[in-house]
């Protein structure tokens, strides 16, 4: 039996109070549509006429749907390539802009800026940069005597090109890492320096372990958002060439809004949710092996 102290009660009230606006929004705008889409996933529904219940039919169709498996494969490969790069890149940028120097906030802003831009705008810019003949990247490579690839138009290069484009988003994880870095007590570095630890040693023995909760947080966020990649593929490649960049969310969009199979699209969306949920749970479970909390481990 836990005693309810006035402090605890006040804290609980503050918690519910601060979460209330989000909760209200969630219940009104998310939970309803989510339940509806769960129901829709067991129906055949064209959006215009009433849904017709067909049990597990949509989920059974998925097993035989080659495009579904292709889109799942593309999404998984992309996530596996992008998430580690995103974490490493964000961490690198955060370390670079960590020192409190004069004018450093200008750099912080510059590195973060691309994360603020509209997805479509930055993808269009990348499409120009990656143009096989007139694009800046291949022109630069040509100066070095290298014949650049066909980037977005080569089935082998299209997905790596999209990974390349996403470097643009490093600023988002940088900001979170920067926040994490600031929670590391400076005394630890002083003590380490006094004991003769070099930069690398401090990084491996102090920064990384103490940053692990932030890495964990970024990892979860990054996995979730990467699995939902849509804009890049929609704008830059339209899923092509030869379905090489057919992401799951793009496929869901096509089924739902282009082919009017909202039931099937809903079922696909729930499979996506299940995949993300399982992966996130795995990552959360793995915490005790590598995440180190200075204070109490959160319950």
């Amino acid at each position, binding site marked *: 039996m836990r005693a309810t102290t006035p402090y605890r009660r*006040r804290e609980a*009230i*503050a918690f*519910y*109070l601060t979460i*209330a606006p989000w909760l*209200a929004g969630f*219940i*009104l705008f998310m939970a309803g549509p989510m339940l509806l889409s769960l129901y829709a996933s067991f129906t*055949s529904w*064209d*959006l*215009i*006429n009433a849904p017709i219940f067909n049990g597990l039919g949509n989920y059974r169709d998925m097993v035989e749907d080659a*495009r579904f498996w292709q889109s799942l494969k593309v999404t998984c490969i992309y996530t596996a390539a992008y998430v580690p790069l995103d974490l490493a890149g964000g961490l690198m940028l955060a370390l670079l802009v960590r020192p409190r120097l004069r004018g450093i906030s200008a750099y912080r802003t510059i590195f973060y800026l691309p994360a603020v831009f509209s997805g479509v705008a930055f993808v*269009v810019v990348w*499409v120009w940069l990656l*143009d*096989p*003949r007139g694009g800046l990247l291949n022109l630069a490579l040509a100066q070095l005597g290298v014949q650049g690839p066909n980037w*977005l*138009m*080569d*089935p082998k290069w299209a997905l790596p090109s999209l990974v390349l484009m996403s470097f643009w988003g490093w600023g988002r994880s940088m900001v979170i890492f920067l926040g994490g870095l600031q929670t590391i007590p400076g005394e630890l570095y002083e003590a380490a320096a006094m004991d003769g630890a070099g930069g690398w040693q401090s990084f491996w023995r102090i920064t990384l372990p103490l940053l692990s909760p932030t890495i964990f947080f970024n990892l979860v966020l990054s996995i979730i958002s990467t699995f939902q990649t849509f804009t890049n593929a*929609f*704008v*830059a*490649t*339209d899923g*092509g*060439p*030869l*379905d090489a960049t057919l992401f799951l969310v793009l496929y869901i969009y096509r089924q739902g*809004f*282009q*082919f*009017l*199979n*909202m039931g099937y699209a809903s079922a696909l969306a729930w499979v996506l949710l299940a995949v993300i949920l399982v992966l996130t749970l795995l990552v959360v479970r793995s915490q005790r092996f590598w995440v180190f909390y200075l204070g109490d481990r959160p319950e």
Partner: protein
Amino acid sequence: MKTAYRLFSVFLLAVLLLTACQTPTPIVQTIQVEVTKIVAGTPEVQTVVITATPAPTLAPTTATGPVVIRAGTGDSGEGLAPHQTIIQNFEAKNPDIIVQLEPVAGSDYYARLLTQLAAKAAPDIMQIGDDAVPNFVSKGAFVPLDDFMKQANFDPSIYLPGLLDPGKYQGKQYELPKDYSPMAVYYNKKIFDAAKVPYPQEGWTWDDLLATAQKLTKKGADGKPEIWGLQLTANWTSGFEYYVAAAGGTLISADGKSYVGHMDSPEVIHAVQFFTDMYNKYQVTPPPANLNQWAGGNQEFANGKAAMFIFGRWPQAGYLKNPNIDLGVAPLPKDKVRANVLFWSGFGISTTTKYPEQTFRFLNYYAGEPGAQVWKDWALPAVKSVADASGKTKDPIDGVWINELNYLTPRAYTFTPYWGETADPALNKALQTVLLTPNADVAATMKTAAQEAQTALDKLLNK
């Protein structure tokens, strides 16, 4: 402080519960709707307060004061000006109706429309594009217009040839034309004159097209073309239907059930071979700049680096102002058949409208002669008398487009509502394959595509 917190959270909870459990009460009182309209050309915003008592039944409206009709369009930006002008003119003559334009830009439009249809809150008038017609109509989103047209003595022969067809489904008229474009050949007179090559003429053939393109392609010192003979449209599937039709082929059987025997027929293989040879064998066509509709396609013609370009009328206004180009437009070349395909959008009336009479009255105006008087300044007018009177029919450039309407062949989507879901991805993939692999076996590629499309279609038809 503590009490304040508690009070506030109780209040929040109450708000939540209230919104969750609110039961709809029958509306008997008079409601006031405030409509804000932006008037074309002027920054002024009109606010009109409408008072209406909703009738308990859907049948004859007993509205007092003007009714509000909502019009959905996928046009945006500058393209909204003609809509607004027409609406303004219409409202001046019909004080009992207020038209509220609801534009949604780009590819979000259909997603929005479908969501509104699902929520039974669709606009009274909806603009949709050609290949969406069978899909929306077969699912019951639009009312047939035939009875309205008869009652209003609407004369369907006012339109230029072929323009009513895309709005038909199983013999009934569901949409009236808004704007359209067939395909034609743009050519840059500067490049033709410099190479002393005569301009293309009606009656020319695919062989002439190739020969002309070869004469105009000019290689630089590095062996790579500086000037390309002919820009084409890569894996743009609906545009590719022209080549299929000109070769005398079809992509689907007339009963809408078979792709096998059509997509892999000798005629279609010939069309694909001819198309891809322009890129890979003869190299008169610049390689695709991208493989998706969003990225804008090749820019060689716009940059004065390609002599010809086969496409629709959409970029014409820009080309006419483009200093790199002295523009001419030529009829499409024929192979076995003198053919063309139409791109089109039209207006129809939603099945959910509460004001069918008023909505048709507006549609009649929007898509009829008065509307065409306004559209003509922005696009090709659909109404023949307007096209004639404005001189467009005889115009050396716009006359070519209008004349192309005499050679239209039906597009594949008209034979099945499943075209977009089954054959279009397969054809797209086949075109990508032959364009990206110079020595691709076209016959084998088309056979695979036909089978892939057929399997998908059979599965849907058997459901």
